[in-house]
């Protein structure tokens, strides 16, 4: 990869976990027991049915936009995006075209920031199920998913490695879960990743820089679609980089197409070749009045936002010397973080180490301060009374003493346990170890 730089832009679809659908009152349940149990005239696209926008979904989209540092359009609207597919009952998807709710945001990664182009809201489609019924191959349609609120987060082509792509996606999921607007369960399709991948010849990039057109992108891109795990994303990109490099080195240009990832074979494969750009014939949906996001409404949404995730980690680092990598394992939602914060405050107040608490929580599944205290607390026993017990234990375990003297020092672990059992007390491990060693040596 010396001569080429990979350039990746990502599109991520996330199902919001609102109670009801994007434009109807059907239950929104990604784990419905049976197909087609949550449907109505609206999400089935029946004649005469009309969409009515879900306010909660709009507010959550704006919330996400704000959490990603986006600007919010004061006037937004829904547009119809036309294409024919059996799982799209109206012949168009209600989406957003030129006035998305949110635009120009940013997600931080350890490789550098990734610009967010836009965050918009749309409806999910139904699902095709290819099956055999009575020996006949059939395609069935499940409309439970039709009309589920779907947020799309689009990045700038500013991701420069598979590792950064993975980190970006993980970070995005963390932010969304923190806002508690989606569970982002990738297995059930609540979060779907797409990466647009192309390779830039570094030499030509340099010459481009010279001619002041540094934002010029390669003249093709390959869309890697429907990725449902971070690992597959990483592996898929890595495979693409190698594949495209081989083609480029032959002096050819990779075909502009949509590819899928085969996890078993660990390769990407052609799904659809776009011969020309699709014409979706976008126009404002006349069934849905434009949406004014006035200062008051925006203020309300803003004030419902939790402390930013970055701010939270910085504050915990400052107040309790907590490492993000560790403490982030302990919570997902802002609600959970607030409970955690309360626990840390109490711990700090009781002059206990929050850092140790977090360690115990991560490694020993400790959940409360009481459990933490029990784990770390010791009984009040004097050295004298301990020494009496130690003498007895050493007497009963002569072999262990011999072992220790012959260099098997870890036998003390066994001896500590024996002493604690004999004493029926909880004693600090290090202290007891020292007393035992002193006794053996004396």
């Amino acid at each position, binding site marked *: 990869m010396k001569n080429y730089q990979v350039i990746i832009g990502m599109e991520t679809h996330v199902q919001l976990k609102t109670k009801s659908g994007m434009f109807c009152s059907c239950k929104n349940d990604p784990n419905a027991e049976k197909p087609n149990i949550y449907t109505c005239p609206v999400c089935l696209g029946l004649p005469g049915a009309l969409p009515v926008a879900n306010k909660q979904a709009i507010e959550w989209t704006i919330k996400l936009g704000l959490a990603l540092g986006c600007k919010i359009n004061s006037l937004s609207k829904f547009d119809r995006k036309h294409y024919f597919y059996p799982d799209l009952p109206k012949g168009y998807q209600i989406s957003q075209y030129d006035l998305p709710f949110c635009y120009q945001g940013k997600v931080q990664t350890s490789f550098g920031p990734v610009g967010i182009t836009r965050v918009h809201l749309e409806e999910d489609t139904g699902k095709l199920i290819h099956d055999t019924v009575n020996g006949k191959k059939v395609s069935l349609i499940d409309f439970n998913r039709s009309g589920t609120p779907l947020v799309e987060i689009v990045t700038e082509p500013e991701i420069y490695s598979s590792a950064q792509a993975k980190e970006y996606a993980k970070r995005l999921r963390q932010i969304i879960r923190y806002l508690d607007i989606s569970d982002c369960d990738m297995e059930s399709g609540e979060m779907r990743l797409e990466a647009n991948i192309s390779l830039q010849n570094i030499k030509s990039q340099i010459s481009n820089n010279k001619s002041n057109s540094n934002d010029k992108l390669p003249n093709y891109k390959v869309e890697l679609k429907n990725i449902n795990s971070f690992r597959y994303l990483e592996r898929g990109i890595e495979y693409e980089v190698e594949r495209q490099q081989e083609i480029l080195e032959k002096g050819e240009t990779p075909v502009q197409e949509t590819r899928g990832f085969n996890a078993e074979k660990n390769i990407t494969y052609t799904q659809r070749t776009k011969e020309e750009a699709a014409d979706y014939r976008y*126009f404002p949906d006349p069934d849905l009045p434009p949406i004014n996001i006035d200062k008051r409404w925006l203020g309300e949404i803003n004030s419902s936002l939790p402390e930013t995730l970055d701010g939270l980690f910085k504050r915990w680092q400052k107040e309790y010397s907590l490492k993000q990598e560790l403490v982030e394992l302990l919570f997902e939602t802002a609600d959970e973080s607030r409970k955690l914060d309360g626990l840390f405050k109490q711990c700090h107040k009781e002059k206990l180490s929050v850092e140790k608490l977090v360690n115990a929580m991560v490694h020993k599944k400790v959940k409360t301060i009481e459990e933490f205290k029990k784990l770390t607390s010791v009984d009040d026993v004097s050295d004298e009374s301990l020494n009496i017990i130690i003498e007895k234990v050493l007497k009963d375990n002569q072999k262990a003493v011999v072992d220790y003297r012959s260099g098997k020092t870890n036998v003390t672990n066994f001896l500590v346990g024996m002493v604690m059992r004999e004493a029926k007390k909880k004693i600090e491990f290090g202290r007891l170890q020292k007393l035992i060693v002193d006794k053996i040596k004396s």
Partner: protein
Amino acid sequence: MKTNELTLKKAIELLDKKEISLDEIYVDTLAAINEKNKDLNVYLKIDKDALEKAKKESNKPLRGLPIAVKDNFLTIGLATTASSKVLDGFMPPYESTVTKRIKNSGGVVIGKTNMDAWAHGSSTETSDYGPTKNPRNPKYLPGGSSGGSAAAVAADMTIAAIGSETAGSIRQPAAWSGVVGLKPTYGRTSRYGVVAMGSSLDSPGPITKTVEDAAFLLNYIAGQDSNDGTTSSLPIPDCGKDLKKGAKDLKIGICYIDHPNIKATPVAKAVEEAGRVFENLGAKVEQVGISSELEKGKILTHEHAIGVYTVVQRGEVSSNLSRYDGIRYGQDRSHFGHEAKNRIMLGTFSLSKGYSDKYYNFAQKVRSLYIKNFKELFQEYDLLISSPSPSYALPLGSLSDDPMFGELQDMLVEPSSLAGITGISVPCFRDEKTNLYLGLNIMGDYFQEEKVLQAAWAYEQASGWNPWVKI
């Protein structure tokens, strides 16, 4: 006199006095249907259980009286096709808001009336189930697209009816058939459960024998609907309450009568004559000048409206008909008629990349000028009057192959439909030789149905053209 010839209000009055019974009304109405439907082709479907249903509703405001409904309203138990073979035999699994409200108020949907297929047209000749004939003179068309509903009222094959208008589809057939048709403000009545045509234009409304009936029926179908986000939350006044207030001191502007197509024709003369009737009622009447550009105090020519309306409506049609992709509803796309195919192609073109700015987006910009124009005019005038159609009803077969037939027919109402304001057509002349009627289109500002109805009632009483007024 037979009970099917009664107006809605009169039927309620006589039922309440127990001078007539629901049985009589249904016997007479069904007799009229049996007698005339084969020839006029008004109804596509009749509810055989209508009387049974009606008897349970006799205590409700509409007293179980029969209401004819245009076939683009979804009705549980009655097939709904919008007169297109694509939807042949489609049994709706849900009820349109308008018919639900009618049923909740004690009205009974006696049957579904013929229309132009998908409401594409102004004649009912594009119906896949054959044209409807004008009951006033069966050699002529009833107008459209709500031609079946207008004809049902005109032929006393119902007590009242429901239609829908995108541009002219209530007012023009009402005019041609010699009945009353009210197009409410866009957003006053719910479009939920109405097979969509031009979604930014469609307005369901009553087609009735008298203005009073239209006001009465509007009360029960209008209002915000949680299933239609484009309905208005503005409160609805009881349009019947001050209906007889009169037209005194109203400032009324006469529009479009200088257009070369109608100048000095009976159509223009009838509108001028109506102006004089209003003057005698104490209104201040003057002619509004016409202009080709936005000009204060003048009405923007309807000439631009034809193009704007055609592009906007065809665009929305092409989108709205996408769902009939052949996968569902039983019939594949070959069942689309000529007119629908024409509109889908034109609409698809005008929304396509590289063309949408030139057509669809440009049309929407011009549309906003019409909105501005009417807003300004209604600061000066209480009401505007014109003709809903440039002519009397045309003979059967007039549609022939003129793709712009409907647009030329509707040119005088298209500006008001694009703006979304309200208007009513009331009979304003009858030609003795042909027995055909002309209508007067009385237009009002947004959500000013009450004012429009008051003026229409006063005119109806004073002019004497409405055959039911004396009943």
